[in-house]
Protein backbone atom coordinates (compact mmCIF):
# COMPACT_ATOMS: atom_id res chain seq x y z
CA UNK A 1 0.00 0.00 0.00
CA UNK A 2 2.42 2.61 1.16
CA UNK A 3 4.94 1.87 -1.59
CA UNK A 4 2.50 2.33 -4.43
CA UNK A 5 1.15 5.70 -3.39
CA UNK A 6 4.59 6.99 -2.66
CA UNK A 7 5.85 6.05 -6.11
CA UNK A 8 2.83 7.55 -7.82
CA UNK A 9 3.43 10.93 -6.33
CA UNK A 10 7.16 10.94 -6.80
CA UNK A 11 7.08 9.35 -10.23
CA UNK A 12 8.81 11.99 -12.39
CA UNK A 13 12.16 12.10 -10.68
CA UNK A 14 13.03 8.69 -9.25
CA UNK A 15 11.54 6.50 -11.92
CA UNK A 16 14.22 3.85 -11.78
CA UNK A 17 14.31 3.11 -8.06
CA UNK A 18 10.89 1.56 -8.37
CA UNK A 19 12.67 -1.50 -9.68
CA UNK A 20 13.05 -2.42 -6.07
CA UNK A 21 16.77 -2.13 -5.32
CA UNK A 22 18.08 0.59 -3.02
CA UNK A 23 18.38 4.04 -4.45
CA UNK A 24 21.68 5.87 -4.16
CA UNK A 25 23.08 5.57 -0.64
CA UNK A 26 21.36 3.94 2.25
CA UNK A 27 19.25 6.90 3.29
CA UNK A 28 16.27 6.04 1.20
CA UNK A 29 16.63 2.29 1.42
CA UNK A 30 13.62 0.56 2.86
CA UNK A 31 15.53 -2.42 4.20
CA UNK A 32 18.13 -0.40 6.02
CA UNK A 33 15.59 1.99 7.49
CA UNK A 34 13.27 -0.81 8.46
CA UNK A 35 15.97 -2.36 10.61
CA UNK A 36 17.09 1.02 11.86
CA UNK A 37 13.59 1.68 13.23
CA UNK A 38 12.58 -1.77 14.37
CA UNK A 39 16.00 -3.23 15.24
CA UNK A 40 16.29 -2.03 18.86
CA UNK A 41 12.77 -3.22 19.65
CA UNK A 42 13.22 -6.57 17.93
CA UNK A 43 16.54 -7.28 19.65
CA UNK A 44 14.91 -6.53 23.02
CA UNK A 45 11.91 -8.63 22.14
CA UNK A 46 14.18 -11.50 21.22
CA UNK A 47 16.22 -11.31 24.42
CA UNK A 48 13.51 -10.51 26.93
CA UNK A 49 10.50 -12.29 25.50
CA UNK A 50 11.53 -15.03 23.10
CA UNK A 51 14.59 -16.26 24.99
CA UNK A 52 12.68 -16.56 28.30
CA UNK A 53 9.86 -18.40 26.57
CA UNK A 54 12.30 -20.81 24.95
CA UNK A 55 14.32 -21.20 28.11
CA UNK A 56 11.16 -21.83 30.06
CA UNK A 57 10.04 -24.57 27.70
CA UNK A 58 13.50 -26.13 27.93
CA UNK A 59 13.54 -25.92 31.74
CA UNK A 60 10.12 -27.51 31.96
CA UNK A 61 11.61 -30.80 30.75
CA UNK A 62 14.37 -30.85 33.36
CA UNK A 63 14.74 -31.43 37.04
CA UNK A 64 15.61 -27.86 37.96
CA UNK A 65 15.58 -27.05 41.64
CA UNK A 66 17.72 -24.12 42.76
CA UNK A 67 19.36 -24.06 39.34
CA UNK A 68 18.59 -22.66 35.92
CA UNK A 69 21.19 -24.73 34.10
CA UNK A 70 19.98 -28.23 34.92
CA UNK A 71 21.28 -31.49 33.51
CA UNK A 72 18.70 -34.12 34.47
CA UNK A 73 16.19 -34.57 31.68
CA UNK A 74 12.87 -35.75 33.08
CA UNK A 75 10.58 -35.63 30.06
CA UNK A 76 7.03 -34.72 30.96
CA UNK A 77 7.45 -35.38 34.67
CA UNK A 78 7.15 -31.70 35.60
CA UNK A 79 3.94 -31.44 33.64
CA UNK A 80 2.58 -34.55 35.29
CA UNK A 81 3.63 -33.21 38.67
CA UNK A 82 1.84 -29.88 38.09
CA UNK A 83 -1.32 -31.42 36.70
CA UNK A 84 -1.54 -33.95 39.54
CA UNK A 85 -0.70 -31.27 42.07
CA UNK A 86 -3.85 -30.32 43.97
CA UNK A 87 -2.52 -26.84 44.60
CA UNK A 88 -2.11 -26.14 40.91
CA UNK A 89 -5.42 -27.61 39.80
CA UNK A 90 -7.01 -25.88 42.78
CA UNK A 91 -5.53 -22.61 41.53
CA UNK A 92 -7.16 -23.19 38.15
CA UNK A 93 -10.43 -23.75 40.01
CA UNK A 94 -9.91 -20.51 41.94
CA UNK A 95 -9.35 -18.67 38.68
CA UNK A 96 -12.52 -20.16 37.20
CA UNK A 97 -14.61 -19.00 40.16
CA UNK A 98 -12.94 -15.61 40.11
CA UNK A 99 -13.46 -15.11 36.38
CA UNK A 100 -17.06 -16.29 36.59
CA UNK A 101 -17.77 -13.55 39.14
CA UNK A 102 -15.55 -10.67 38.11
CA UNK A 103 -16.06 -10.69 34.34
CA UNK A 104 -19.88 -10.32 34.30
CA UNK A 105 -19.97 -7.93 37.27
CA UNK A 106 -17.34 -5.60 35.85
CA UNK A 107 -18.98 -5.74 32.45
CA UNK A 108 -22.38 -4.84 33.90
CA UNK A 109 -21.10 -2.18 36.29
CA UNK A 110 -18.90 -0.41 33.77
CA UNK A 111 -21.62 -0.48 31.14
CA UNK A 112 -24.17 0.80 33.69
CA UNK A 113 -21.89 3.63 34.75
CA UNK A 114 -21.20 4.55 31.13
CA UNK A 115 -24.92 4.62 30.31
CA UNK A 116 -25.60 6.86 33.29
CA UNK A 117 -22.68 9.22 32.71
CA UNK A 118 -23.59 9.43 29.05
CA UNK A 119 -27.06 10.71 29.92
CA UNK A 120 -25.94 13.37 32.35
CA UNK A 121 -26.34 16.98 31.42
CA UNK A 122 -24.77 18.53 34.50
CA UNK A 123 -21.67 17.45 36.38
CA UNK A 124 -20.81 14.95 33.70
CA UNK A 125 -17.05 15.52 33.98
CA UNK A 126 -17.25 15.32 37.75
CA UNK A 127 -18.93 11.92 37.83
CA UNK A 128 -16.75 10.55 35.08
CA UNK A 129 -13.70 11.57 37.10
CA UNK A 130 -15.06 9.99 40.28
CA UNK A 131 -15.47 6.60 38.63
CA UNK A 132 -12.25 6.93 36.69
CA UNK A 133 -10.06 8.05 39.60
CA UNK A 134 -9.49 4.57 41.12
CA UNK A 135 -7.64 3.65 37.92
CA UNK A 136 -4.81 5.74 39.34
CA UNK A 137 -4.51 3.51 42.38
CA UNK A 138 -2.45 0.36 42.42
CA UNK A 139 -3.76 -3.04 43.39
CA UNK A 140 -1.37 -2.96 46.32
CA UNK A 141 -2.77 0.33 47.61
CA UNK A 142 -6.33 -0.88 47.20
CA UNK A 143 -5.49 -4.16 48.92
CA UNK A 144 -4.06 -2.21 51.81
CA UNK A 145 -7.11 0.02 52.16
CA UNK A 146 -9.42 -2.98 51.90
CA UNK A 147 -7.49 -5.21 54.26
CA UNK A 148 -6.49 -2.67 56.86
CA UNK A 149 -9.64 -0.61 57.03
CA UNK A 150 -12.69 -1.29 54.89
CA UNK A 151 -12.76 -5.05 55.42
CA UNK A 152 -10.65 -5.26 58.53
CA UNK A 153 -11.84 -8.27 60.48
CA UNK A 154 -11.84 -6.46 63.81
CA UNK A 155 -14.51 -4.13 65.09
CA UNK A 156 -13.06 -0.86 63.82
CA UNK A 157 -13.08 -2.06 60.21
CA UNK A 158 -15.55 0.07 58.24
CA UNK A 159 -17.72 -2.81 57.04
CA UNK A 160 -17.90 -4.31 60.52
CA UNK A 161 -18.65 -0.89 62.01
CA UNK A 162 -21.59 -0.42 59.67
CA UNK A 163 -22.82 -3.97 60.27
CA UNK A 164 -22.43 -3.36 63.98
CA UNK A 165 -25.00 -0.56 63.79
CA UNK A 166 -27.49 -3.25 62.78
CA UNK A 167 -26.35 -5.60 65.50
CA UNK A 168 -24.37 -7.95 63.26
CA UNK A 169 -21.39 -9.73 64.81
CA UNK A 170 -17.89 -8.99 63.53
CA UNK A 171 -17.04 -10.91 60.38
CA UNK A 172 -13.53 -12.23 59.80
CA UNK A 173 -13.48 -11.20 56.16
CA UNK A 174 -10.12 -12.63 55.18
CA UNK A 175 -8.96 -14.84 58.02
CA UNK A 176 -11.56 -17.55 57.58
CA UNK A 177 -12.34 -19.36 54.30
CA UNK A 178 -15.66 -20.68 55.53
CA UNK A 179 -17.98 -18.96 54.68
CA UNK A 180 -15.79 -17.58 51.87
CA UNK A 181 -16.22 -13.88 52.58
CA UNK A 182 -12.79 -13.27 51.09
CA UNK A 183 -14.37 -13.39 47.65
CA UNK A 184 -16.42 -10.31 48.49
CA UNK A 185 -13.25 -8.46 49.51
CA UNK A 186 -11.33 -9.47 46.41
CA UNK A 187 -14.15 -8.84 43.96
CA UNK A 188 -15.09 -5.42 45.35
CA UNK A 189 -11.45 -4.32 45.31
CA UNK A 190 -11.06 -5.24 41.67
CA UNK A 191 -14.44 -3.78 40.73
CA UNK A 192 -13.44 -0.49 42.29
CA UNK A 193 -10.09 -0.47 40.55
CA UNK A 194 -11.02 -1.48 37.03
CA UNK A 195 -14.64 -0.48 36.36
CA UNK A 196 -13.76 3.13 35.57
CA UNK A 197 -11.33 2.06 32.89
CA UNK A 198 -13.90 -0.06 31.08
CA UNK A 199 -16.50 2.64 31.59
CA UNK A 200 -14.30 4.92 29.46
CA UNK A 201 -14.26 2.30 26.71
CA UNK A 202 -18.04 2.01 26.79
CA UNK A 203 -18.47 5.79 26.89
CA UNK A 204 -16.36 6.15 23.77
CA UNK A 205 -18.39 3.45 22.05
CA UNK A 206 -21.71 4.99 23.14
CA UNK A 207 -20.72 8.31 21.66
CA UNK A 208 -20.01 6.63 18.35
CA UNK A 209 -23.55 5.30 18.01
CA UNK A 210 -25.26 7.53 15.41
CA UNK A 211 -28.04 9.57 17.00
CA UNK A 212 -30.16 8.92 13.92
CA UNK A 213 -30.62 5.34 15.06
CA UNK A 214 -32.50 6.50 18.11
CA UNK A 215 -34.52 9.08 16.18
CA UNK A 216 -35.56 6.49 13.63
CA UNK A 217 -36.45 4.06 16.39
CA UNK A 218 -38.59 6.72 18.05
CA UNK A 219 -40.43 7.28 14.75
CA UNK A 220 -41.00 3.55 14.51
CA UNK A 221 -42.58 3.66 17.93
CA UNK A 222 -39.86 2.09 20.03
CA UNK A 223 -40.18 3.01 23.66
CA UNK A 224 -37.28 4.86 25.15
CA UNK A 225 -35.38 2.98 27.77
CA UNK A 226 -35.44 -0.78 27.72
CA UNK A 227 -36.48 -1.25 24.08
CA UNK A 228 -33.96 1.10 22.55
CA UNK A 229 -31.31 -0.27 24.88
CA UNK A 230 -32.03 -3.87 23.89
CA UNK A 231 -32.42 -3.37 20.15
CA UNK A 232 -30.03 -0.51 19.43
CA UNK A 233 -27.55 0.27 22.18
CA UNK A 234 -26.55 -3.28 23.05
CA UNK A 235 -26.12 -4.53 19.46
CA UNK A 236 -24.16 -1.38 18.59
CA UNK A 237 -21.84 -2.06 21.52
CA UNK A 238 -21.18 -5.59 20.42
CA UNK A 239 -17.60 -5.08 19.28
CA UNK A 240 -16.69 -3.16 22.41
CA UNK A 241 -18.38 -5.71 24.65
CA UNK A 242 -16.45 -8.53 23.04
CA UNK A 243 -13.17 -6.69 23.49
CA UNK A 244 -14.00 -5.75 27.08
CA UNK A 245 -14.89 -9.32 28.02
CA UNK A 246 -11.70 -10.63 26.49
CA UNK A 247 -9.60 -7.99 28.27
CA UNK A 248 -11.35 -8.76 31.55
CA UNK A 249 -10.73 -12.45 31.13
CA UNK A 250 -7.03 -11.97 30.41
CA UNK A 251 -6.73 -9.56 33.33
CA UNK A 252 -8.44 -12.05 35.66
CA UNK A 253 -6.11 -14.76 34.43
CA UNK A 254 -3.13 -12.69 35.43
CA UNK A 255 -4.53 -11.67 38.81
CA UNK A 256 -1.75 -11.64 41.34
CA UNK A 257 -1.38 -8.41 43.28
CA UNK A 258 -4.58 -8.38 45.31
CA UNK A 259 -4.59 -12.12 46.04
CA UNK A 260 -0.97 -11.98 47.11
CA UNK A 261 -1.51 -9.01 49.39
CA UNK A 262 -4.97 -9.68 50.74
CA UNK A 263 -4.48 -13.39 51.34
CA UNK A 264 -0.77 -13.51 52.17
CA UNK A 265 0.22 -16.65 54.04
CA UNK A 266 -3.17 -18.30 53.59
CA UNK A 267 -3.50 -21.56 51.74
CA UNK A 268 -6.89 -20.84 50.22
CA UNK A 269 -7.83 -18.56 47.36
CA UNK A 270 -4.62 -18.86 45.38
CA UNK A 271 -4.99 -18.08 41.67
CA UNK A 272 -2.53 -19.59 39.14
CA UNK A 273 0.07 -16.85 39.20
CA UNK A 274 0.31 -16.83 42.98
CA UNK A 275 0.68 -20.59 42.93
CA UNK A 276 3.43 -20.31 40.31
CA UNK A 277 5.15 -17.65 42.35
CA UNK A 278 5.33 -19.92 45.37
CA UNK A 279 6.36 -22.92 43.27
CA UNK A 280 9.20 -21.24 41.41
CA UNK A 281 10.34 -18.57 43.84
CA UNK A 282 9.21 -20.00 47.15
CA UNK A 283 11.19 -22.24 49.47
CA UNK A 284 11.72 -24.98 46.89
CA UNK A 285 12.73 -22.78 43.96
CA UNK A 286 11.49 -25.44 41.60
CA UNK A 287 12.08 -23.73 38.25
CA UNK A 288 11.29 -26.89 36.30
CA UNK A 289 7.82 -27.32 37.75
CA UNK A 290 7.25 -23.55 37.70
CA UNK A 291 8.13 -23.38 34.03
CA UNK A 292 5.88 -26.33 33.25
CA UNK A 293 3.07 -24.49 35.03
CA UNK A 294 3.79 -21.34 33.00
CA UNK A 295 3.67 -23.31 29.74
CA UNK A 296 0.36 -24.93 30.74
CA UNK A 297 -1.13 -21.53 31.62
CA UNK A 298 0.06 -20.00 28.38
CA UNK A 299 -1.45 -22.83 26.33
CA UNK A 300 -4.71 -22.50 28.24
CA UNK A 301 -5.01 -18.78 27.65
CA UNK A 302 -4.16 -19.12 23.96
CA UNK A 303 -6.90 -21.73 23.59
CA UNK A 304 -9.43 -19.67 25.53
CA UNK A 305 -8.58 -16.51 23.58
CA UNK A 306 -8.94 -18.21 20.21
CA UNK A 307 -12.11 -19.99 21.31
CA UNK A 308 -13.70 -16.83 22.62
CA UNK A 309 -12.64 -14.91 19.55
CA UNK A 310 -14.42 -17.50 17.49
CA UNK A 311 -17.72 -17.71 19.32
CA UNK A 312 -18.08 -14.02 19.95
CA UNK A 313 -17.04 -13.10 16.43
CA UNK A 314 -14.03 -10.87 16.50
CA UNK A 315 -14.35 -10.39 12.75
CA UNK A 316 -17.36 -8.16 13.21
CA UNK A 317 -15.41 -5.71 15.27
CA UNK A 318 -12.93 -5.29 12.44
CA UNK A 319 -15.55 -4.19 9.92
CA UNK A 320 -16.58 -1.18 11.95
CA UNK A 321 -13.16 0.41 11.57
Amino acid at each position, binding site marked *: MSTTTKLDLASPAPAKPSQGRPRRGLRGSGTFNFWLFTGPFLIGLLIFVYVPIGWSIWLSFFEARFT*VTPSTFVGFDNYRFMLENDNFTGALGTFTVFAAIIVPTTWALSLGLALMV*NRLRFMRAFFR*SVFFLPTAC*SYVAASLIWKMSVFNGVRFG*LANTVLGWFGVENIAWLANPDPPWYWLVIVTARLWLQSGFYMILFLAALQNIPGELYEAAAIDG*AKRGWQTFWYITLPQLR*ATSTAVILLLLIAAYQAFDEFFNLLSKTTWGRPPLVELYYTALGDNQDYGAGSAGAVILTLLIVVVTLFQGKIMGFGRGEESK
Partner: protein
Amino acid sequence: MTTTAPEVTKTAPAGGPRGTGRGRGRGRGVMSSTGLYLAIGVAAFFFLIPFYVLIRNALSTDAQITGEEWTLFPTDIQWGNITEPFDDPTVDFGQSMVNSLIVGVLHTVGTLLVCSLAGYGLARIPYRHANKVFYAVLFTLMVPTAVTFVPGFVLVSSLGWIDSYRGLIIPGLFSGFTCFLFRQYFLGFPKELEEAARVDGLGYWGAYWRVVVPNSLNFFAAIATITFINGWNSFLWPLVIGQDPSAWTVQVALSSYMTNQTVNYHLIFMATAISILPLLLVFLFLQRWLVQGIAQTGIKG
Protein backbone atom coordinates in the same frame (compact mmCIF):
# COMPACT_ATOMS: atom_id res chain seq x y z
CA MET B 1 -37.83 -3.88 15.82
CA THR B 2 -34.92 -5.98 14.76
CA THR B 3 -35.75 -5.69 11.10
CA THR B 4 -35.84 -1.91 11.04
CA ALA B 5 -32.41 -1.54 12.53
CA PRO B 6 -30.34 -2.47 9.45
CA GLU B 7 -32.23 -0.02 7.21
CA VAL B 8 -31.52 2.73 9.64
CA THR B 9 -27.86 1.93 9.59
CA LYS B 10 -27.64 2.72 5.93
CA THR B 11 -29.05 6.19 6.29
CA ALA B 12 -26.82 6.99 9.23
CA PRO B 13 -23.64 8.04 7.41
CA ALA B 14 -25.53 10.79 5.58
CA GLY B 15 -25.81 12.83 8.75
CA GLY B 16 -22.98 13.47 11.15
CA PRO B 17 -22.25 10.75 13.67
CA ARG B 18 -22.18 13.31 16.44
CA GLY B 19 -24.61 14.64 18.96
CA THR B 20 -25.93 11.52 20.61
CA GLY B 21 -25.19 11.81 24.29
CA ARG B 22 -26.75 15.03 25.36
CA GLY B 23 -29.61 15.24 22.90
CA ARG B 24 -31.09 11.98 24.06
CA GLY B 25 -31.67 13.19 27.57
CA ARG B 26 -33.86 16.04 26.35
CA GLY B 27 -37.19 14.27 26.27
CA ARG B 28 -36.84 12.74 29.69
CA GLY B 29 -39.02 13.98 32.48
CA VAL B 30 -37.91 15.58 35.71
CA MET B 31 -38.59 12.40 37.66
CA SER B 32 -36.34 10.13 35.67
CA SER B 33 -33.61 12.75 35.67
CA THR B 34 -33.85 12.92 39.46
CA GLY B 35 -33.68 9.15 39.62
CA LEU B 36 -30.65 9.17 37.37
CA TYR B 37 -28.81 11.63 39.59
CA LEU B 38 -29.84 9.67 42.66
CA ALA B 39 -28.51 6.40 41.24
CA ILE B 40 -25.27 7.89 40.03
CA GLY B 41 -24.87 9.72 43.33
CA VAL B 42 -25.13 6.46 45.26
CA ALA B 43 -22.59 4.83 42.94
CA ALA B 44 -20.24 7.79 43.32
CA PHE B 45 -20.63 7.61 47.10
CA PHE B 46 -19.40 4.02 47.14
CA PHE B 47 -16.55 4.81 44.77
CA LEU B 48 -15.36 7.62 47.01
CA ILE B 49 -15.45 5.65 50.28
CA PRO B 50 -11.95 4.18 49.91
CA PHE B 51 -10.49 7.63 49.27
CA TYR B 52 -12.30 8.96 52.32
CA VAL B 53 -11.01 6.11 54.51
CA LEU B 54 -7.51 6.61 53.17
CA ILE B 55 -7.41 10.34 53.94
CA ARG B 56 -9.16 9.98 57.28
CA ASN B 57 -6.78 7.30 58.51
CA ALA B 58 -3.71 9.04 57.14
CA LEU B 59 -4.48 12.13 59.19
CA SER B 60 -5.63 10.43 62.39
CA THR B 61 -3.85 8.99 65.38
CA ASP B 62 -3.89 5.23 65.86
CA ALA B 63 -6.14 5.72 68.88
CA GLN B 64 -8.72 7.43 66.68
CA ILE B 65 -8.49 4.79 63.97
CA THR B 66 -8.92 1.87 66.34
CA GLY B 67 -11.32 3.65 68.69
CA GLU B 68 -14.69 2.40 69.94
CA GLU B 69 -16.72 4.86 67.88
CA TRP B 70 -16.13 5.63 64.23
CA THR B 71 -14.84 9.19 64.08
CA LEU B 72 -16.08 10.72 60.87
CA PHE B 73 -12.99 12.85 60.49
CA PRO B 74 -10.26 13.74 62.98
CA THR B 75 -10.88 17.12 64.56
CA ASP B 76 -7.21 17.57 65.36
CA ILE B 77 -5.69 16.75 62.00
CA GLN B 78 -2.29 15.07 62.39
CA TRP B 79 -0.25 16.91 59.75
CA GLY B 80 2.83 15.52 61.43
CA ASN B 81 1.96 12.10 60.00
CA ILE B 82 3.18 13.27 56.59
CA THR B 83 6.85 12.93 57.47
CA GLU B 84 6.52 9.72 59.48
CA PRO B 85 6.87 7.17 56.67
CA PHE B 86 10.16 8.82 55.72
CA ASP B 87 11.52 8.49 59.26
CA ASP B 88 10.39 4.90 59.71
CA PRO B 89 13.45 2.71 60.42
CA THR B 90 11.83 -0.59 59.39
CA VAL B 91 10.98 0.29 55.78
CA ASP B 92 12.95 2.82 53.75
CA PHE B 93 9.91 4.45 52.23
CA GLY B 94 11.76 7.47 50.87
CA GLN B 95 14.18 5.27 48.95
CA SER B 96 11.28 3.27 47.53
CA MET B 97 9.60 6.45 46.29
CA VAL B 98 12.85 7.51 44.61
CA ASN B 99 13.18 4.07 43.05
CA SER B 100 9.63 4.18 41.75
CA LEU B 101 10.13 7.64 40.31
CA ILE B 102 13.34 6.69 38.49
CA VAL B 103 11.92 3.41 37.27
CA GLY B 104 8.61 4.99 36.24
CA VAL B 105 10.21 7.82 34.25
CA LEU B 106 12.87 5.71 32.53
CA HIS B 107 10.37 2.96 31.83
CA THR B 108 8.06 5.46 30.16
CA VAL B 109 10.75 7.23 28.13
CA GLY B 110 12.35 3.97 27.04
CA THR B 111 9.10 2.25 26.11
CA LEU B 112 7.94 5.23 24.09
CA LEU B 113 11.22 5.53 22.24
CA VAL B 114 11.69 1.87 21.37
CA CYS B 115 8.07 0.98 20.67
CA SER B 116 7.20 4.10 18.66
CA LEU B 117 10.18 3.62 16.35
CA ALA B 118 9.30 -0.01 15.82
CA GLY B 119 5.64 0.83 15.31
CA TYR B 120 6.56 3.39 12.67
CA GLY B 121 8.88 0.99 10.93
CA LEU B 122 6.22 -1.68 10.79
CA ALA B 123 3.53 0.72 9.61
CA ARG B 124 5.38 2.77 7.04
CA ILE B 125 8.70 1.41 5.82
CA PRO B 126 8.42 -1.00 2.91
CA TYR B 127 10.40 -4.16 3.44
CA ARG B 128 9.87 -7.59 1.96
CA HIS B 129 9.65 -9.47 5.26
CA ALA B 130 7.84 -6.77 7.23
CA ASN B 131 4.79 -8.98 7.54
CA LYS B 132 6.73 -11.84 9.07
CA VAL B 133 8.29 -9.49 11.57
CA PHE B 134 4.89 -8.12 12.43
CA TYR B 135 3.56 -11.62 13.10
CA ALA B 136 6.52 -12.25 15.40
CA VAL B 137 5.43 -9.18 17.38
CA LEU B 138 1.77 -10.21 17.35
CA PHE B 139 2.66 -13.64 18.68
CA THR B 140 4.01 -12.10 21.89
CA LEU B 141 0.60 -10.57 22.53
CA MET B 142 -0.79 -14.06 22.86
CA VAL B 143 1.62 -14.91 25.65
CA PRO B 144 0.49 -13.06 28.76
CA THR B 145 3.43 -11.06 30.03
CA ALA B 146 2.76 -12.01 33.63
CA VAL B 147 3.07 -15.69 32.84
CA THR B 148 6.62 -15.14 31.62
CA PHE B 149 7.77 -13.84 34.98
CA VAL B 150 9.35 -17.15 35.97
CA PRO B 151 11.57 -17.45 32.88
CA GLY B 152 12.06 -13.69 32.92
CA PHE B 153 13.38 -13.90 36.44
CA VAL B 154 15.64 -16.76 35.43
CA LEU B 155 17.10 -14.68 32.61
CA VAL B 156 17.55 -11.51 34.62
CA SER B 157 19.18 -13.34 37.50
CA SER B 158 21.66 -15.02 35.18
CA LEU B 159 22.50 -11.58 33.77
CA GLY B 160 23.18 -10.48 37.36
CA TRP B 161 20.51 -7.78 37.20
CA ILE B 162 18.68 -8.67 40.39
CA ASP B 163 18.27 -5.65 42.70
CA SER B 164 19.24 -3.19 39.96
CA TYR B 165 17.47 -0.48 37.98
CA ARG B 166 18.49 -2.33 34.85
CA GLY B 167 16.62 -5.41 35.98
CA LEU B 168 13.58 -3.36 36.94
CA ILE B 169 13.44 -1.28 33.76
CA ILE B 170 14.97 -2.93 30.70
CA PRO B 171 12.99 -6.19 30.45
CA GLY B 172 9.73 -4.22 30.52
CA LEU B 173 10.57 -1.87 27.66
CA PHE B 174 9.75 -4.21 24.79
CA SER B 175 5.99 -4.26 24.93
CA GLY B 176 4.48 -5.92 21.90
CA PHE B 177 1.18 -4.28 22.76
CA THR B 178 2.55 -0.73 22.82
CA CYS B 179 4.38 -1.37 19.56
CA PHE B 180 1.14 -2.65 18.08
CA LEU B 181 -0.72 0.48 19.24
CA PHE B 182 1.88 2.74 17.65
CA ARG B 183 1.72 0.78 14.42
CA GLN B 184 -2.05 1.16 14.29
CA TYR B 185 -1.74 4.85 14.99
CA PHE B 186 0.93 5.47 12.33
CA LEU B 187 -1.11 3.58 9.75
CA GLY B 188 -3.65 6.36 10.10
CA PHE B 189 -1.12 9.19 10.09
CA PRO B 190 -1.64 11.53 7.09
CA LYS B 191 0.85 10.51 4.40
CA GLU B 192 0.91 13.95 2.79
CA LEU B 193 2.92 15.34 5.69
CA GLU B 194 5.63 12.74 5.31
CA GLU B 195 5.71 13.15 1.56
CA ALA B 196 6.21 16.87 1.95
CA ALA B 197 9.11 16.16 4.27
CA ARG B 198 10.67 13.77 1.77
CA VAL B 199 10.35 16.33 -0.99
CA ASP B 200 12.33 18.60 1.28
CA GLY B 201 15.08 16.01 1.20
CA LEU B 202 14.56 14.26 4.52
CA GLY B 203 15.05 10.52 4.82
CA TYR B 204 12.84 8.29 6.92
CA TRP B 205 14.78 9.16 10.04
CA GLY B 206 14.60 12.90 9.51
CA ALA B 207 10.97 12.82 8.51
CA TYR B 208 10.14 10.81 11.59
CA TRP B 209 11.75 13.18 14.06
CA ARG B 210 10.98 16.48 12.32
CA VAL B 211 7.48 15.81 11.04
CA VAL B 212 5.87 12.66 12.38
CA VAL B 213 6.71 12.97 16.06
CA PRO B 214 5.93 16.71 16.41
CA ASN B 215 2.54 16.06 14.82
CA SER B 216 1.73 13.10 17.08
CA LEU B 217 2.36 14.62 20.48
CA ASN B 218 -1.22 13.99 21.64
CA PHE B 219 -0.90 10.31 20.98
CA PHE B 220 2.53 10.16 22.59
CA ALA B 221 1.15 11.94 25.66
CA ALA B 222 -1.71 9.47 25.93
CA ILE B 223 0.55 6.43 25.68
CA ALA B 224 3.08 8.02 28.04
CA THR B 225 0.43 8.58 30.69
CA ILE B 226 -0.84 5.02 30.50
CA THR B 227 2.68 3.61 30.48
CA PHE B 228 3.71 5.66 33.47
CA ILE B 229 0.67 4.62 35.49
CA ASN B 230 1.24 0.96 34.67
CA GLY B 231 4.93 1.26 35.52
CA TRP B 232 4.29 3.02 38.81
CA ASN B 233 1.61 0.55 39.85
CA SER B 234 3.25 -2.67 38.74
CA PHE B 235 3.97 -5.07 41.55
CA LEU B 236 4.82 -8.62 40.49
CA TRP B 237 7.98 -7.84 38.55
CA PRO B 238 9.44 -5.41 41.13
CA LEU B 239 8.60 -7.96 43.83
CA VAL B 240 10.52 -10.65 41.99
CA ILE B 241 13.49 -8.44 41.10
CA GLY B 242 13.70 -6.37 44.27
CA GLN B 243 15.09 -8.97 46.64
CA ASP B 244 16.97 -6.42 48.71
CA PRO B 245 14.94 -3.65 50.45
CA SER B 246 17.15 -0.98 48.87
CA ALA B 247 15.77 -1.99 45.45
CA TRP B 248 12.11 -2.01 46.47
CA THR B 249 9.68 0.13 44.55
CA VAL B 250 6.95 1.88 46.45
CA GLN B 251 4.44 -0.91 45.74
CA VAL B 252 6.72 -3.54 47.24
CA ALA B 253 7.29 -1.29 50.26
CA LEU B 254 3.53 -0.89 50.75
CA SER B 255 3.09 -4.63 50.47
CA SER B 256 5.70 -5.21 53.14
CA TYR B 257 3.70 -3.05 55.59
CA MET B 258 0.88 -5.55 55.43
CA THR B 259 3.03 -8.44 56.59
CA ASN B 260 4.97 -6.53 59.23
CA GLN B 261 4.67 -7.70 62.81
CA THR B 262 3.77 -4.32 64.23
CA VAL B 263 1.00 -2.46 62.51
CA ASN B 264 1.26 1.30 62.60
CA TYR B 265 -2.05 2.29 61.08
CA HIS B 266 -1.65 6.02 60.53
CA LEU B 267 1.83 5.52 59.08
CA ILE B 268 0.69 2.83 56.67
CA PHE B 269 -2.20 4.89 55.39
CA MET B 270 -0.10 8.02 55.08
CA ALA B 271 2.46 6.05 53.06
CA THR B 272 -0.31 4.75 50.81
CA ALA B 273 -1.70 8.24 50.33
CA ILE B 274 1.74 9.56 49.44
CA SER B 275 2.24 6.72 46.96
CA ILE B 276 -1.02 7.56 45.20
CA LEU B 277 -0.44 11.32 45.14
CA PRO B 278 1.87 11.50 42.08
CA LEU B 279 -0.62 9.55 40.04
CA LEU B 280 -3.55 11.66 41.16
CA LEU B 281 -1.63 14.72 39.98
CA VAL B 282 -0.91 13.01 36.67
CA PHE B 283 -4.60 12.22 36.47
CA LEU B 284 -5.87 15.68 37.22
CA PHE B 285 -3.59 17.35 34.69
CA LEU B 286 -3.59 14.75 31.96
CA GLN B 287 -7.08 13.29 32.20
CA ARG B 288 -8.02 14.55 28.77
CA TRP B 289 -5.17 12.68 27.10
CA LEU B 290 -5.69 9.68 29.26
CA VAL B 291 -9.36 9.33 28.41
CA GLN B 292 -8.63 9.95 24.76
CA GLY B 293 -5.80 7.45 24.81
CA ILE B 294 -7.83 4.73 26.45
CA ALA B 295 -10.73 5.34 24.13
CA GLN B 296 -8.42 5.11 21.12
CA THR B 297 -6.29 2.23 22.21
CA GLY B 298 -8.25 0.10 24.64
CA ILE B 299 -10.83 -0.95 22.10
CA LYS B 300 -8.19 -2.23 19.75
CA GLY B 301 -6.70 -4.43 22.45
